[in-house]
Each structure stands twice: as structure tokens, then as C-alpha cells.
């Protein structure tokens, strides 16, 4: 139950700000240098692993992938004695939106656009690169009924999709004690009103063009309310924030929703892992939420490893970290796997990508090497 909650007092950068033509990006997207990498094991992302696979990319886009992919003459070929996979994707992030991520003065901020709050070269964002995270969904923090529109951003470079989700808190997280709504029935009534006569973003959500990010809250009943709400209005999108999704797997599948698994912590970890296993059994697409800077970026792979320890297949875990997450975020055409035509977001590992014991040797975003593990001899360290 919620007594007086501590509220963020920082104001949000309002949408009325002059639209910034192109988001400030450190790496100028587009003309990255041409490169080819051969790795002992190349994880395509759909479960297949190519022994000694080669990936070739030019101008930030992958052109060739394969065991005997032809390397154009004159192009540099890097030999990597380890694994290579697509960059990891986190589904609910606050890094880089320092203090801008929710506005508690009004319950509904449907037009607020998190893309404007994203500062790519903030130190919090750099921390993600060291953990192999190349793309993430920048979402508002819980606290308001409708927090705004989430953006999908490349770590350290530009926003690649400005309207990834409409963030909604149907559970107790959306309540505060000194403005409407202060009760669950109040918030449900308001959402019912907004979605029964939808305008603007609500109309696009009801039409299915704009997926929603539903923070269902912690108790199973609140998660039930979120699922039945989504079904009632035919909404697509993902459920976040609850550690008790395991028992609801069947309902979630029936509603056609995806899930973002919360971080593994010693006290709630057991239910998070059970939930992930139940979801994977019911073939519910799920990715991993991260929520740095409060959650350390290493939590992404740690949570995946905890699920593997409990029985999840490593290939399913990698798929959830990469391709499934890209599908859920609606950017599967740009990132999420090592395939021709996609962005050259690649990570070189010293071992299995889903083993937290493997080191991140190098990270490429849009073909540019943005991180290299510092070692005395350069390149591979075995």
C-alpha cells in the first residue's frame, strides 16, 4: 500500500521546445569506415551460430554475413578469437535523461517526448557501452498515470525512433497523494475515459500504431487489471515493472503483449526468474528492462544469467537480449541481429555472450568502434 510517496520535483523539458532538427550525436551516423571481422563463433541472433563467421560492414551497415563471406579487396579483416554478437538492447532505461524523466504536476503528459531529454554523451550512457548495450528504450520513470512517449536511442549516438511506446502506469505506481488520481479506481476511470473517446496519441494507440508500455505495478491483481485494460482497448505493447508476471503468463499471451523482465535482485530475484521461465514456456516474447543508473548496466546480463541458471536456454536468453527486444521496441528493421541491411552494432566477447564471465572486448555502433577493452597487447586477449 502506498503512504506519502517521495516525488521527483524536477520539471520535464516540455514538447513546446523548438524541434531540434537532428539529435546531437557524437558519432556522425552514416559514413563509418568499412571493416570485416572474423570471429570463432558468430551469433547471428536468431539462434544460429556460425563457426569462424565473417561479417563485413560499410558506412555503418552490414553488407555480408557468412562462413565464407567474400571480403572486398583492400578491406581490413580483424581476427577475433572469441564470440561476436549483435549489440544488447535494454527495454526500459533512464540513462541520459538526467532528472527529466517524469513530471508529477499533471497525471497525464501524453504529448511529452523523451527524445528531447536524451543527452548521448552523458557519463551514465557511456557505462552502458562497457556492458555491450548498444540500443535502449528511454522511458519516463514511474510516478505519473501517462508519463509520455518513449524513444529508442543508440548508446552514445542518435535517437532512432521517437515514438516507441506510450508509457502508462495502471498500478499503484501511477498514484500520488496530492493530485488526481489518488486511488486505483480513479486511475482506471481516467484511463477508461481517455481510451474510450481517444484523441491524439490515445487514438494511435487504440489503432495499434503506437504500442504502450504498461507499468502493471507489483501486486498480481494490478497486473491483471493492466492485462484486461489492454485487451479491452485492443492495445499492443509490453508489460514492465512487475516481478509477479510468472503466474499471468497465459493471460499475457492471450492479450498478445510482450514483457520487459525486471532486474534480478537478491530479495525479488526468485520471482523474476520464475516469471521469465513461465513466459518462455508460453512463447511470450520478452526482453530485459534495466533502469540504470539506479540499476548497474551489468544487471542486464546478470538477470539473463540468473534465468539460464534456473533453466532458460542460452540461445533464448541471447534472443531476448537482442532480436526479440528489437521486435518489441519496433526497431527490428534497424538493429537486433547480425544480418545484411541492419546497422553494424556489434560486440566482441571473450566467451559466450550470455555468460557474465565473458569480457566485452570491443563494441561497434553504426560501424564505429566506440569501446575497446584496454589491454597491454591490442586486439584479442585470450
Amino acid at each position, binding site marked *: 500500500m502506498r503512504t506519502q510517496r517521495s516525488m521527483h520535483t524536477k520539471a520535464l523539458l516540455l514538447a513546446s521546445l523548438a524541434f531540434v532538427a537532428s539529435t546531437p550525436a557524437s558519432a556522425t551516423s552514416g559514413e563509418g569506415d568499412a571493416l570485416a571481422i572474423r570471429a570463432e563463433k558468430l551469433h547471428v541472433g536468431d539462434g544460429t551460430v556460425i563457426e569462424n563467421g565473417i561479417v563485413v560492414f560499410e558506412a555503418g551497415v552490414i553488407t555480408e554475413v557468412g562462413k565464407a563471406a567474400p571480403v572486398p579487396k583492400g578491406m581490413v579483416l580483424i581476427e577475433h578469437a572469441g564470440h561476436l554478437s549483435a549489440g544488447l538492447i535494454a527495454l526500459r532505461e533512464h540513462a541520459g535523461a538526467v532528472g527529466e524523466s517524469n513530471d508529477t504536476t499533471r497525471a497525464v503528459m501524453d504529448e511529452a517526448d523523451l527524445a528531447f531529454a536524451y543527452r548521448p554523451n552523458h557519463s551514465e550512457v557511456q557505462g552502458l557501452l562497457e556492458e555491450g548495450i548498444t540500443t535502449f528504450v528511454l522511458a519516463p520513470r514511474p510516478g505519473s498515470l501517462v508519463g509520455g512517449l518513449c524513444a529508442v536511442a543508440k548508446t552514445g549516438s542518435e535517437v532512432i525512433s521517437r515514438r516507441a511506446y506510450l508509457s502508462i502506469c495502471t498500478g499503484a505506481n501511477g498514484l500520488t497523494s496530492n493530485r488526481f488520481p489518488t486511488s486505483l479506481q480513479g486511475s482506471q476511470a481516467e484511463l477508461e475515459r481517455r481510451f474510450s473517446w481517444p484523441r491524439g496519441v490515445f487514438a494511435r494507440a487504440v489503432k495499434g500504431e503506437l504500442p504502450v508500455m504498461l507499468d502493471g505495478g507489483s501486486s498480481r491483481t494490478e497486473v491483471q487489471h493492466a492485462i484486461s485494460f489492454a485487451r479491452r482497448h485492443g492495445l499492443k505493447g509490453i508489460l514492465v515493472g512487475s516481478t509477479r508476471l510468472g503466474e499471468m503468463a497465459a493471460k499475457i499471451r492471450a492479450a498478445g503483449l510482450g514483457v520487459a523482465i525486471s532486474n534480478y535482485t*537478491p530479495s525479488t530475484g526468485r520471482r523474476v526468474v520464475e516469471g521469465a521461465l513461465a513466459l518462455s514456456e508460453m512463447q511470450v516474447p520478452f526482453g530485459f528492462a534495466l533502469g540504470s*543508473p*539506479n540499476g*548497474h*548496466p551489468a*544487471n542486464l546480463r546478470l538477470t539473463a544469467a540468473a534465468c539460464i*541458471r534456473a533453466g532458460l536456454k*542460452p540461445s533464448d536468453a541471447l534472443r531476448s537480449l537482442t532480436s526479440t527486444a528489437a521486435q518489441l521496441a519496433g526497431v527490428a528493421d534497424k538493429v537486433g541481429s547480425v544480418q545484411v541491411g541492419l546497422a553494424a552494432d556489434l560486440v566482441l566477447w571473450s566467451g559466450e555472450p550470455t555468460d557474465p*564471465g565473458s569480457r566485452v572486448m570491443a563494441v561497434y555502433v553504426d560501424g564505429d568502434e566506440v569501446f575497446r577493452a584496454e589491454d597491454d597487447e591490442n586486439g584479442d586477449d585470450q
Partner: protein
Amino acid sequence: MHLPETTLASVLLVGATSGLFASPAFSSAATSPPTQGDLVAVRAHKLHVSPGKVLEDATLLIRAGVIVQVGNDLEVPEGARLIEGDVVCAGFMDPWGSLGMNAAATVDMATNAATSAIDGVDPYLHPWYRNRALAAGVTAVRVQAGMVSARGGVGAMLSTAPADDLEGMILLKDSNAAAGLGLSSRGNPPDVFARISAVDKLVGDINKGREYSITWAKYAHDLEAWNKTIAEAEAKLEKDFKKAKKDRDKEIAEAKEKDKEFKEEKYKEDKRPKLPKLDAEDAVMARVASGEMPLVVTIHRAAEMRELLKGTAKFKRLRLVIAGGTEAEAVADQLVARSIPVIVRPAPLGANRPDEYSGHNLALAGRLADAGVRVLLGSSGGGSSDLPLLATLAIGHGLDRDKALAALTTEVARTFDLSGELGSLRPGRRADLLVLDGEPLLPTTTVRYVLCAGRVLISPDSRD
């Protein structure tokens, strides 16, 4: 004169014959009711005797909870229970845990150097918490009262095996003394001024402990000398008694003649040495100063560490252990020179971490190990059952895999004087071991069997 037996004097008087860990305080086989024929054989494709030393296709024989034989082609004696598996290694140990402790005792700020962790151990905790740690492969946990107080008192090493009473849980009664410098408690960071004086106060307490042991040793010596001189004096008086009696009669006679008052001879002897004042806290610090017990100091900032190392340099036999050590790289050379181990907390701490952990980096364990520092991994009370999983994070950020396994087994045993009992799979050791279906510390590896003192506690069909 009856010497209170808890004082240090009795130990010193008796001399260092019975070292603490050899005395039966350490109940190795006491936990499992060993019948003579309690024979278990464990066969594995790869047997990690100790990190880095692996035997292929080896067998290990356990009798009455103790490993008796390890070798390649040992045939299994009939009547022994045979367990087979891919990989066998020693049980993991959490050198900085709280499993088994009463919650309030771990955050108690009123503890002092003499507070015993045993008084805070709760044997009635729900068994589910213990089974969860066993299932993760953790077979022993070092626990401490007052984990964030200035003086945590005397810690203990507990076994995670289920036991019906307190004695059954204890592996080692007095494993260490503890102190905390610059730690935040219940969320609020420590007062800056308190931090400055804390190091001097700790060094002062160790010094007081040393002087305490000296005064007691001196008292013991003086007492012995005094007893000897008194014994000699008595013997001499005994011998000269006849003469003394004759002289005395003569004097009485003379006095009567001159009818003067007869005055007895005044007998003088030097006074008996005074019993020094008893102080339980100084007694603990004396054992620390004499190196009998390691001193685990929970400390994070480089400035305080430098101050601590400088202040404790003069105690030659002090065995210091750093817990936390977020900025320990700055003093890595001194730590290597004085062979001071560091217990690192490998947890991924986000922005809402306690103040003293600011600057915490998952690569700390790897960098310290590369600099030659003895590294241990501990959960700092954050759940021992997750320690093996968190250890993989340390490996993923630069800690060598064998050093990580050592940090959970042999290094812990070595730091707390348990090398003869735990940490490796050699004859004479307590049979705490894990049977895995893959290399240790991999997420894909599952723990199939867990044995504590030869008793099979976790097996594939008993997984709950």
C-alpha cells in the same frame, strides 16, 4: 586464587601449546552423526583438488565426513555410496555473509570488541533460506554481529548444513575480530569528523590490546618469580627456625632481666604482584595484536586505508583483512607487501548505492588480483546464495577464473586459519564438496549434489 578462565592470562600461562584451531572448538565431524561405516565415494571426470590443480577421472573417498583418499584409479570399497558426476570441486564459502544471523544483530550499532556473533545466530531461521544457499553451492558462511558498527566483535564461521541446534551450525567459534571505518548505517552516510578519528581510535585499541597482553604476561612472570622467592624464603625460614627460636628465647630472657618490653622482629617480604584489571575487549584486541585472530576491517576510501596501514605497520604479528576496499588499488603495493587479503563485493551497484561504495567498479577484483593482492569475494550480507552468480561478474570484468574459484574456497580457508579443514579436496579435509555438470562458476552449470561433512544434502531428486 581462582583465575577467571576467560581471561587471556590462562592462555598465556599455559603457553601457546593448544593453538585455537586445533582445540576441539572446531567441530568437524560433530555435525553428522558419523557411523564408522559412513563411507562415500565420489568419482568425477574432472576433480578440482584446489583451483588450478585438476585431476582427470579421479575418485575421492570420504569416511565419517572426512576425505581420506584422493587419487586417479581408486576402486570403490564395497558398501560405500557412489556418486558420479562431471566436475567436482570444494564447496564455496562466503567470507562476508549474514546467513543464519538474526537480522537486528547484523545492523546493531551497540556492539563492541567483545560481542560474540554466536549470540546473534538464530538456529530457528526458516530452512528455505539455508537450502537456497546450499543449492547455489555455498557450504559455509562467515557471519558477524554489527556489520556496520565501529567494533563488530568476534565473528564465527557457520556451516550452511541444516543442524538441529546451535553447536551443530558452528564450524569455527572465534574466526576473527571486526571493525568498521567510515560506513553509512541505515542509509545515512557517516559523519565526516567521526571518520577522521576512527582510524586512530582503532590503532589505539590494538595498541591497548598489545599492552594488555604484555601486562598479563608480566604479571604471570612476576607471579612465578614471587612464588619462587616466597618458596625459597619459606625453605630458608624453615631451616633457620631452630636458630631463630633460640635467639628469640634469649631476647625474651634479656628483656625480662632489663624488664624492658620484648619487641618481636618485624618480618617483611615484598608484596604479591597485583592482579591486573580484567577487560574483555582488551582481551580480544590482545589476541588480534598477537596474530592469533585476523582483524577484518570494513573500509572503502583510500585516505582512510593509507592511514590504517600506516598506523598498523608497527604491529608485526597483526593479521589485517580489508573488507570492501572500493579504492584499494591505491594501496595495492602495501597490501601485497604485507600479504593483506581484500574481500571484494562483486555486486552490480547502481547509482543508489551506499555512499562509501561510490566509485565501486566491477573490475576491482580483477585489477587487485593482477596487482598480486590476495582477493576474496563476499556478499556483504546481501544474500550468500547469489555469491557464485555474482562471482561470474567479477570474472567478466577481468578476474582470472582460477583466482575467482580460489577467492571462494582456498583463500577464504587460508585467511581464517581453516586451510587444514576446508577449501580444498585433500585427505584430512572436511568433506564439503559440490558435484557439478560443468565448469564451476558458469551460468549453464547446475549443482547436482552438495555434500557437507560427507552428508548428501542436495541431490538431483531433492531439488526444491
